[in-house]
């Protein structure tokens, strides 16, 4: 025997549901649940957090911090190891040059990379306080592995093989200003720099146990 009647109680709850339950529900962080139920729709979040960071104001004698925009495209149906070649091509180029070169790359992933860079350029002008769209260069360009769908295929003589359908994420960071002359640290040195280094090495020599 219940102390309370359940039906009127439920009616009461349903009346106040819209007022009480929903505001509380919206405060619950649901992304963890979504990730658990549908991991293939999960998109990487950490790279875009860089966009939200607010830097403190700079002092006048400090070198001006160039504006940048981080953008990504998730779960592109392409192999991450093949996409890596396209990402490497674009590193250190101006956005105009990057888009122009990507038009002539005969690979499936080049289309997605070009669209991502174009979107990033538009975002930079709209939201990230970049004055000229052409004054941007590709500071970072890299690939991550996305959702993998696994399947089986049959070979001859009743042998079975595993088939994996890869997706990839493409990340790009555009920075304002002119690109550096050499993107990587290990670049061939200028002749005058080589000469200076050689002279330094020659002068560093010492006869052991001498003054």
């Amino acid at each position, binding site marked *: 025997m219940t102390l309370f009647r359940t039906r009127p109680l439920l009616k009461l709850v349903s009346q106040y549901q819209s007022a009480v339950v929903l505001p509380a529900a919206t405060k619950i962080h649901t992304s963890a649940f979504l990730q658990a139920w549908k991991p293939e729709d999960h998109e990487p979040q950490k790279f875009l957090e860089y966009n939200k960071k607010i830097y403190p104001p700079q002092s006048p004698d400090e070198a001006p911090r160039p504006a940048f925009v981080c953008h990504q495209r998730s779960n592109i149906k392409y192999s991450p190891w093949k996409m890596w070649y396209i990402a490497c091509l674009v590193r250190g180029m101006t956005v105009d*040059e990057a888009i*122009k070169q990507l038009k*002539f*790359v005969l690979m499936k992933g080049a289309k997605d990379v070009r669209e991502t860079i174009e979107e990033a350029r538009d975002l930079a002008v709209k939201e990230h306080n970049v004055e000229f769209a052409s004054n941007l260069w590709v500071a970072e360009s890299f690939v991550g592995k996305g959702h993998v769908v696994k399947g089986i295929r049959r070979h001859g003589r009743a042998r079975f093989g595993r088939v994996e359908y890869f997706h990839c994420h493409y990340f790009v960071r555009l920075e304002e200003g002119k690109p550096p002359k050499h993107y990587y640290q290990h670049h061939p040195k200028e002749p005058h720099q080589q000469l200076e280094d050689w002279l330094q090495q020659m002068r560093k020599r010492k006869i052991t146990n001498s003054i």
Partner: protein
Amino acid sequence: MAGSLLIRINVAIQRLELAIASVFTRRFPPDGFCLAGVDVQERLHQKPAFSLKDIVGDGFVWAVPTARRTIERRMKRRFGHPDYIWKMLKPKTNLRTCNVCGDDHLPGVLCPTCYKKVIEETKVMQDAIQQELQLSPVEKEVVVLYEGEKDGKPEEFFEGKRIVEIPKPRPAWFSKNLLQQTTQQPATTSDVKPSDLG
């Protein structure tokens, strides 16, 4: 009585022999009976336990790498070699820019964006001609005119020709001079008429 005693003695001797034999086959004789200077291996441990590996061998570890891939092999696979096949993408330095529309294209090719416009316009002209002529045989010359071009010309101009009209203005890039015939009558005068240069 003597017979059974003999039998009993025989049996006893046989048992003794078996006992002695078992001492020597299964295990070494006790310390007192062993020869000095000879290693005695006490086979106290049992035979190694039976495992599937004896039958299958290393079958369950097939198709698995046995050694770490060196950095040289990894780099050769990813980058290739500059003298043989360089796997990294190289930016193209031979791209040309179209003077008309500003888009880039490979050398030896008409600007694709401009050419696409030409293809579309050609299709419009062809559709208009097909609609006009349908299946009748082409005996006379066919002239395609855009909006406002028929009124400017006199009636005799189109005497031996079939007219196809397209109800839209002439595209800016489509010069009227392009419609000059390749086979022309020899010139009567040496004056050059600067007409229809559009």
